[in-house]
């Protein structure tokens, strides 16, 4: 029987991370990717189901329902009839759990004591495969999510967020995980089932487990249980269109907190979906610009009006962006904008990118990876889910250090020529008295 379970696993790849835990990658015949990290530093185990979905899969009529679905994950299922039973079981298992919905990814994760691994695994399986979507619970949850929405509107940067969605995206609703109040208040069982059928299938998901476990021991149990999850093949996630477009140079003003000025200059960046070759130079470039002894920082912060600045590429499949940003006194925003634009132009000067600076940036990225690997729980809930979704599997993450090490000044120049030079940008100027005007 044990041998049979082993055969169910399509392939197994063992990787060693920089820290002292190893990772096993597998895939089941139903398409579910499994990632198991062994770490005995603490007697806990963390499990995360990550799904290729989110706001980007929504329409104006369903905007907010990917997030609504995430809430329903924590309610009744075929094994635990309602949320009260669900809560009771969590306490029995001493379970710490959460879920998040972004524009491009949804994650569900839980942590239990490692001696309760089997119980935790079963709990996760029941929750992901058998949600009931009880109509009464859906109605109650509408109010809960509306309060989450109302809380968001209190954030001093709420208007900036809305403005960015409106200006940068082709279909703004695909960027807004919280969604629209009208859709939230109309959510019903039918739409939940629609999401489930389309996206909540093993071939559109990954199960990540890290902690005080032995991969060889648990993999058969995982394959046995999650192998029962029925293959779907209905997800359109990988066929969705890019959702970012900046057609012309635009300047917009937004209101922000008292005493704060902020400048954000945004360009379209390479997509993780089909332009990954550009992304290594993009990341080294971002790290290069972030150096506190680099020209960007020296000119704008150490010898300029800014309190802080950054330049970065955001690795996304549908809304990849390249951003130059900084905070400063609101009275200096106009002056700051001129200086930041000059600094962007200066990047195209020959010799701006030095080999020693690139070495430092690459080394920083190597160290950043070490810091992220400090906690295997964080790996299960943050790092692996992010890269599994954005990279379309873990291969991108696994090859990342070597790819970064190969980046040259020439690669960065090519990247900037392709994505920044003479490209239209959207500029957001945030001041206390700012209003939404173009």
């Amino acid at each position: 029987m044990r041998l049979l379970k082993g055969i169910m696993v399509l392939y197994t790849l063992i990787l060693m991370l920089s820290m002292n835990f190893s990772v096993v990658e597998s895939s089941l015949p139903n398409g579910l990717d499994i990632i198991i990290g062994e770490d005995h530093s603490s007697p806990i185990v963390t499990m995360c189901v990550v799904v290729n979905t989110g706001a980007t899969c929504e329409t104006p009529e369903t905007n907010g329902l990917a997030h609504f679905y995430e809430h329903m994950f924590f309610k009744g299922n075929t094994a635990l009839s309602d949320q009260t039973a669900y809560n009771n079981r969590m306490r029995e298992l001493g379970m710490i759990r959460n879920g998040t919905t972004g524009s491009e990814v949804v994650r569900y994760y839980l942590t239990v004591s490692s001696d309760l691994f089997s119980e935790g695994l079963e709990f996760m399986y029941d929750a992901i495969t058998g949600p009931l979507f009880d109509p009464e619970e859906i109605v109650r949850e509408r109010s809960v999510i509306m309060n989450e929405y109302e809380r968001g509107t209190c954030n001093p940067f709420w208007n900036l967020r809305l403005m960015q969605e409106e200006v940068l995206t082709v279909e703004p609703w695909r960027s807004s995980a919280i969604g629209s109040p009208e859709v939230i208040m109309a959510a019903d069982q039918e739409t939940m089932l629609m999401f489930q059928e389309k996206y909540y299938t093993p071939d559109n998901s990954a199960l990540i487990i890290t902690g005080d476990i032995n991969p060889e021991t648990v993999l058969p149990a995982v394959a046995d249980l999650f192998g029962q999850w029925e293959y779907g093949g209905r997800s359109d996630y990988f066929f969705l269109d890019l959702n970012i477009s900046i057609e012309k140079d635009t300047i917009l003003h937004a209101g922000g907190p008292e005493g704060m000025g902020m400048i954000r200059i945004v360009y379209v960046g390479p997509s993780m979906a089909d332009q990954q070759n550009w992304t290594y130079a993009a990341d080294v470039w971002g790290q290069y610009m972030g150096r506190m002894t680099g020209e960007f920082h020296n000119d704008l912060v150490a010898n300029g009006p800014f309190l802080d600045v950054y330049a970065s590429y955001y690795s996304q499949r549908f809304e990849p962006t390249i951003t130059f940003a900084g905070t400063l006194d609101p009275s200096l925003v106009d002056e700051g904008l001129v200086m930041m634009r000059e600094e962007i132009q200066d990047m195209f000067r020959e010799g701006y990118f030095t080999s020693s600076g690139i070495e430092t940036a690459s080394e920083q990225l190597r160290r950043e990876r070490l810091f992220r690997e400090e906690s295997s729980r964080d790996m299960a809930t943050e790092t692996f889910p992010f890269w599994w979704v954005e990279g379309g599997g873990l291969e991108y993450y696994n090859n990342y250090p070597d790819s970064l090490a190969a980046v040259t000044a020439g690669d960065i120049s090519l990247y900037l020529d392709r994505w920044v030079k003479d490209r239209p940008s959207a500029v957001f100027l945030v001041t206390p008295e700012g209003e939404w005007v173009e």
Partner: protein
Amino acid sequence: MISILFVLALLASVPENVTEFDLANGIHVVSRTVPGGEVEGLSFFLIGGSRVLEESNQGIEAFALEAAMTGSDTYPDERWREIMDVTLASWNASYNYDYSRYHLKCLSEDLPLLLDGFADCLLEPELDSVAVGRVQNSQLVALQSELEDPDNRVWLVANKGFMGTGHPYLLRPDGIPSTLSSFDVDDAREWLSSRIKSGNIVITHAGPTPPEQLAELLEASFGRIPEGGDVIPSVPEFGIDRDTVIAETDETLSAYCVVKFKAPPAGNADLPAYITACLVVDEMLWQVLRTDNALTYAVFGGSTNSYRRNWGYMYISTTEPVLSATLMTGVFRDVASGNVDQSLVTGVANNYRTTQGINAQSMDTQCWMLGSGYISAGDWRAPYLLQESLENMTVYEISRALSDWAGTAGWGIIADGAIVDFAEFEPWSLKGE
């Protein structure tokens, strides 16, 4: 002379490989050796917090420490930034009622250099006026942004009624805009000169560097800190003697509501039962306010356990603050009267155990636990021993602790007066009829 005392872990929840020692100047060090990795955590605690502040200098320690960290005579601004670039080390500062904490996260190979630079910044700060001005403006921007968010501000509103006039915890360690904007380089230099004394400092560490090597590194860096220290006054009881509610209006779709109530101080025998009681309150708030009545996205309760003077609290964001406060009061009374199932008590102990397991993976959290335990209870083991105490708690014990300690309540509410009728706010009593 460095004397090293190895501590044996007698209980399962107390970590092994913890070493305590004093530097020659008397700075106390607690180190948890975590073999295998490359990431080090080191926290520098400056004891005092609100109790060394006055109305007119709230935030001075936060300002002075941040200003100091811009560079020193040996590690001037640009050299120090270069080190930060090369090491990618991070510094996280936090300032609270009892202490300031500066936490360093770095790789083991960089620890010697960073400790030397850290100590040098504290002892011989460069305090370049331009760099310090930038720090000051950054702090002001962050503070202003925080104060504009009612979700953050509501806790301060509750303090006004709960703590009572003149209580030192009303003084804000991270400052207020008027004080923070008034400080200059001389203020920072003077503050550092008076506060950076061995008697005011505790250092905690978690990471792979063994204690003998750590002791050498710390002696070479922080061993230069002069002896002496402040006499820090004890924390008085909170002055609340009757139920109060303080409400502020703001243009906000959601109302925010916090209530605070007294808790046993650090070291008191009732503290574990009281903490358990508040964890049970937390579970019941979720069940009643969110699951059963769908009044909120965010509701929780709990108690502090790392201050010299602790308190319990309940929080909610909701469009129906009056109904919510009434139900929260009912939950509290149920727990205080013992009207809860033992499975809830057992359940929160289970959750706590898992949380401790999660905490063990973070060097930052380990440093915080070691330091806050040492400062608040005089023993780094206090936060770990709490887990043992929670394991066999009974309904009787938790209800007695809650009813004995939590008498009067200080409510703080922020809501939009155009949406919510403030006349309906009353200081809901936590005590039974």
